[in-house]
């Protein structure tokens, strides 16, 4: 019987481990000094940073496995921080209610993408490219060059049940990853997502409600992007229209590095989160290497290609 923790995720874990080992060795400090990379504070920082796009990458992986693509999550994140900030700061709503409306915005955004793709029959790339501009624009229209300072109304050094709010993102990411990994591998809904992405016509012939499955994928992607947005707003204490700019590419790259095939039908949620962590470590460690600042983006690009190429070589060897 195949384990849900099967080979593909293990190779992503191996890459992550290699990466951590490399930076641990490369950034080894002089005698008596603390390690700049391998310490509790920095690891928390990596998780905190990765979780923002890691949460959204879970949704991106589901959409990609379903045979689609979603370019909107960066904009949905920004719009969610703005809506949550607007209600919380300007209208004095309680935080939970503001955040709930923020999540509803994400769900609504997912439904709009799904409607354009399923009903208006637009190609997913085009539909979500347009939607991406619309939500980003909406965020700017609401804020009009201002930003909402949530931190002013939030407690300083905030702890929930004894846990620092800094842990909010990582915990939410890991819990959601576990939930959706289970849904995708152990539930009929997940199987249907794989089936639709693998062969849409066969899925239709098999009695799978293809439109409903696709809609669910985009709505979940919207919801998870909104969760990222709420976490970002709370942890960073800001609601701002230009947050998470360009994140959609990091989010898609996380899913792809984690094994999702843009041809659909292949990938995993756990892989996407591991992919996000691989990027998180790179983004965290590279600036600590003297002189590497300018190479940062280039290295990230090379790593994406290298991992996907390696993956294809492995897949080819298997078959």
């Amino acid at each position: 019987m195949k384990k849900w923790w099967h080979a593909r995720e293990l190779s992503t874990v191996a890459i992550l481990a290699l990466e951590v080992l490399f930076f641990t060795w490369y950034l080894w400090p002089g005698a008596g000094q603390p390690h700049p990379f391998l310490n509790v504070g920095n690891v928390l920082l990596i998780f905190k940073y990765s979780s923002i796009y890691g949460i959204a990458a879970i949704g991106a992986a589901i959409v990609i496995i379903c045979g689609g693509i979603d370019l909107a999550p960066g904009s949905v994140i920004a719009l969610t921080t703005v809506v949550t900030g607007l209600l919380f700061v300007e209208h004095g709503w309680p935080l939970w209610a503001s955040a709930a409306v923020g999540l509803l915005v994400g769900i609504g955004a997912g439904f709009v993408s799904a409607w354009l793709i399923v009903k208006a029959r637009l190609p997913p790339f085009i539909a979500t490219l347009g939607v991406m501009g619309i939500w980003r624009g909406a965020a700017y229209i609401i804020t009009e060059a201002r930003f909402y300072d949530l931190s002013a109304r939030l407690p300083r050094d905030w702890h929930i049940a004894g846990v620092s709010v800094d842990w909010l993102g990582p915990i939410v990411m890991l819990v959601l990853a576990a939930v959706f990994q289970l849904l995708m591998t152990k539930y009929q809904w997940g199987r249907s997502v794989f089936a639709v992405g693998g062969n849409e016509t066969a899925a239709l012939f098999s009695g799978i409600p293809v439109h409903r499955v696709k809609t669910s994928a985009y709505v979940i992607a919207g919801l998870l992007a909104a969760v990222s947005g709420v976490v970002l707003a709370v942890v960073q204490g800001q609601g701002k229209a230009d947050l998470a700019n360009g994140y959609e590419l990091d989010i898609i790259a996380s899913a792809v590095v984690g094994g999702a095939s843009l041809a659909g039908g292949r990938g995993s949620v756990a892989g996407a989160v591991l992919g996000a962590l691989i990027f998180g470590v790179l983004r965290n460690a590279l600036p600590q290497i003297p002189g590497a600042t300018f190479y940062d983006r280039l290295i990230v690009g090379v790593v994406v290609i290298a991992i996907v190429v390696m993956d294809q070589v492995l897949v080819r060897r298997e078959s």
Partner: protein
Amino acid sequence: MTGLTFNDLHKSFGAVHALRGVTFSVARGEAHACVGENGAGKSTLLKILAGIVRPDRGDVRLDDVPLHFSGPRDALSRGIGMVYQERLTFPSLSVAANIFAGREIVGRAGRLDEAAMRARTQALLDQLHVPVSPDVRMEHVSAAHAQLVEVARALAFDCQVLVLDEPTTSLTDAEVDHLFRVLADLKARGVTILFVSHRLPEVFRLCDRITVMRDGAFVGTFDRAATSPETIVRSMVGREPPERVERAAAAGGGPPRLSIRQLTRRPSFEDVSIDVRAGEIVGVFGLVGSGRTEVLETVFGLARADSGRVALDGEDVAIGSARDAARAGLALVPEDRQRLGLFFNLSLRHNLVLPRAVKAGVGRIHEAEEDTIARTQVRDLAIKTPSLARMPDTLSGGNQQKVVAGKWLATGPRVLLLDEPTKGVDVGAKFEIHNIIRSRAAEGMACLVVSSDLPEILALADRIVVMREGRVRGELAGRDATDEAVMRLATHEVEVRA
């Protein structure tokens, strides 16, 4: 010697020995057939010839000069033109652009010489008697003409050897006639033809010599004049072809389980009424364009009827989607298993349990139960696979087809609709699939089998409904139907009712 020689070719894909020492020759100027069941190694042989796959051992020689297998271009430059089974056309480009794709005629400074390509295309099309303009886009060209355009593409560059892989599968008889006239004409002009096909009547009509392959090995080359189709079939499979099996249960009466009444979907078909009783196998025969597949798809809810009713056990059912159909107790085994039937990203186990799970609307997946269901199907249908974790593309065509049937049989349907259930599968698997259908009918399932394979319908069906141009033209009892009687109805005769 002159001609094409395959010399001790060996090829393995992992543990699968696709070719184990194939040696035979095609003489210059002859029409030579290569026949064999699926999995006999014909496709691998052609891929080696085209330069897509490299042999592990051995070589292919044209006029005693070895081919280099550096890629498809090598074969082309040596005058070997291939017409593949799959359509390899560019739908949005013109016919002329398709013919010259990758080998365009260019003028000075690399500019495309459209006029020259157009003129050459026109000449080729005229030569093949294809009434298609070089400027029309490929997507507007009919299947039969597209086939001939591919022949034209193969011929465009001083072709000495023309290789055709199952070229007639989607053609009507008249279109086959046209293709064969063209091939005979080419042969008369000295072109060597290598013809790969399942269809023995066509092979005997066209070819001078016939090479039989089995399980990746060369069995023998036969002269047409000195052999018979029976001999060829025996050497292909090592046994006699299946006979009609009479079933006692089929004769019984009883009310219809599936009742199709005056079903109409213009322009595909009109006023189609068919009854299928529990335990009965009804065959629907028709040529391409008769509307036979469309009837099945409409009954299964994949297309909406203009008018008419479908009743199950006497009660009208409204079926608007495949989901409704599955819930009502229908199952459809579609014709195109690659496109409509299988998920190549899912394991056999998951493929086999999917429609059942969808129908039951289960939430959490019970792996043990799944495993039992999948194992039952693999055992009942004798699906040959080392493991349920395998992907469907590792199976042969016949086993893939059994998986498609199995995934629907697992839903426990009351009515089984089958569209060309044995298309492209070998003789052995065909017989097994027929037995599966018979045993399901014996258990009380109502089976409606659509097929354009006349021997299949005659061997299998208790009653035969013949369609032509979207209408039911007659009904015959399976026991006393002859191929002639069915074919007359399918082609021209006035209606009769059995």
